[in-house]
């Protein structure tokens, strides 16, 4: 293992090993089919570790399917997935997959500690008993995610945000290098979302790659660096500022995209600070003033204040 052999949240380590930043996930022409249904059509993307990448698109666009193909949960009919030049499926110990919250059995008789310990199985295998290092990694993961005091709780007795943190703690205990998260922010209230976003940022800063599906256009830009816009095929990919603009979004969502969410609130707020790259889109919005709805108008005023 590379990143995780050092203490997580240790930025100095990443800085001392810049080559670590060149760990690249490369996806080429991945196609996912469910029987006759084509869910993902020749999707290609690449992401370097240290980044938080969002898979964004309308319902049924194949976001989760692409993520599940990356995780090996569904089989890709075609295409190549490589991590650091190796087939991704050869690196399972480095990859952690977090299912959507509704796919998890929250009544399972499992404590937070038990859940986090499962992350160590990637290192201990099926039989080797836990050693000192395994135990300290579990403690460390619990502490990092602020769960030390909740460690003996059954997982169903946590709040939504705590539940997501428990699963992230499992990934930390696993010393996972690539985190694949399926809709991690869904169902969380605003403060919990912000907390989780901050924790994901911290994990990317220490050199992990986070790839997550996300459906809320209003928050994509705050939470992620890069965006892959998906509608069965990849419509656009690049930094959030580049991708979250009118043309790609219209190409992805069709003409309904503007009604779908308050994404432009973020765009305008970002436009004030992000320099020339986004100014053009800001102008575009002002030309169409009044369109986006009152909530966004309020956000825009705030951005100007």
């Amino acid at each position, binding site marked *: 293992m590379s990143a995780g052999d050092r203490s997580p949240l240790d930025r100095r380590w990443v800085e001392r090993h810049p080559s670590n930043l060149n760990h690249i996930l490369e996806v080429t022409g991945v196609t996912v089919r469910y029987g006759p249904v084509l869910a993902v059509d020749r999707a290609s993307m690449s992401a370097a570790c240290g980044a938080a990448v969002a898979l964004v698109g309308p319902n049924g666009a194949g976001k989760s399917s692409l993520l599940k193909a990356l995780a090996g949960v569904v089989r890709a009919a075609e295409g190549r997935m490589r991590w650091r030049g190796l087939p991704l499926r050869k690196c399972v110990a480095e990859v952690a*997959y977090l299912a959507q919250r509704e796919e998890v*059995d929250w009544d399972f*008789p*499992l404590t937070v500690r038990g859940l986090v310990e*499962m992350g160590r199985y990637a290192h201990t295998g099926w039989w080797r008993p836990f050693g000192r290092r395994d135990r300290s990694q579990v403690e460390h993961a619990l502490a990092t995610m602020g769960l030390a005091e909740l460690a003996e709780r059954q997982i169903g007795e946590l709040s939504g945000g705590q539940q997501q943190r428990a699963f992230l703690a499992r990934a930390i205990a696993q010393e996972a290098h690539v985190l*694949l998260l399926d809709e991690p922010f869904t169902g969380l209230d605003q403060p919990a979302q912000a907390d989780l976003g901050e924790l994901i940022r911290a994990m990317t800063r220490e050199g992990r790659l986070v790839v997550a599906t996300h459906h809320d256009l209003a928050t994509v830009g705050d939470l992620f660096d890069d965006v892959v816009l998906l509608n069965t095929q990849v419509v656009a990919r690049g930094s959030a500022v580049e991708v979250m603009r009118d043309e790609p979004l219209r190409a992805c969502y069709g003409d309904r995209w503007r009604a779908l969410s308050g994404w432009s609130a973020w765009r305008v707020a970002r436009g004030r600070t992000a320099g020339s790259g986004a100014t053009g889109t800001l102008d575009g919005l002002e030309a169409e003033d009044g369109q986006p709805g009152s909530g966004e108008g309020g956000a825009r005023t705030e951005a100007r204040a």
Partner: protein
Amino acid sequence: MSEWWTGLWEAFEQPHLQRALWLCLLAGFSNGFVSGIVVLRKSALMVSSLSHSLLPGIAIGVLVAGLSPWSAFVGAAVAGLIVGLGSVLVARGARLGQETVLAVFYSAAFAAGILLLSYAPGAVQIEQYLFGNVLFASDDDLRVVFWVCAVTVVTLAALQRPLLVMLFEPAAAQSAGVPVRSLQYVLLGAVILVLISSLQAVGCILAVGLLVTPGACVALWVTSPAALLWGGALVGSVGAAVALVAAHHWDWGPGSAIVLVMSGLFLLSWLVGKRHGVLPRWWRGRKAFDN
């Protein structure tokens, strides 16, 4: 009291009662252990279907190879595998739920079993296989049950980690490289084996009581999967043994006694269980209200 106790002690010096006691302990242990997994997998219905489908296998085994524990064992195992695997395959192709297909399969198998047993030699009483005959168990029966118990418990205990990951989150397990499909076949095999081991004790109709209820009891108390499995084994074996003593004392059918003791323990756990018990919840609610 001491008189009753010595009477009981003397009674259980008889070999057939001793064999019955050992059989209850072993079958209760293996069934209780696997019941934890059945509860985690929420597959109680499948277990009940499988248990009914063992009957034709026993009938064919007895018809072909004569009446012996091994012929009944092999027949039951083959029948269970055919129905279990067959329902998986048919359900996959036919776009029906596996439970639906399993229900079709097991009722067919059960009907065939009853029909076939009427052709079996006169010594075989259908009731023995339907409701158990623990008091007539032979040394060979005990040997079969012992090996079944040893093999399943050792195998499943050794596979605890991958099993736990798979039962909790099949998708994440697959992602982590756990051989999910192979493990599911191992589980199917284990369920069939322990069902067979409980045939003598409770018979195939009541087998589901021994293979679901102990785990259901313990699930109301614990928050760790290991505690669920071993606790289920403990409840299963002790409960079955206590039930046998009670059955002997009041002259009940041992199979019914075993299942009723388990159900009683479940009722108790449901009332006072630490995790989800009704009374503790009510009490907590009241205290919260007082504050």
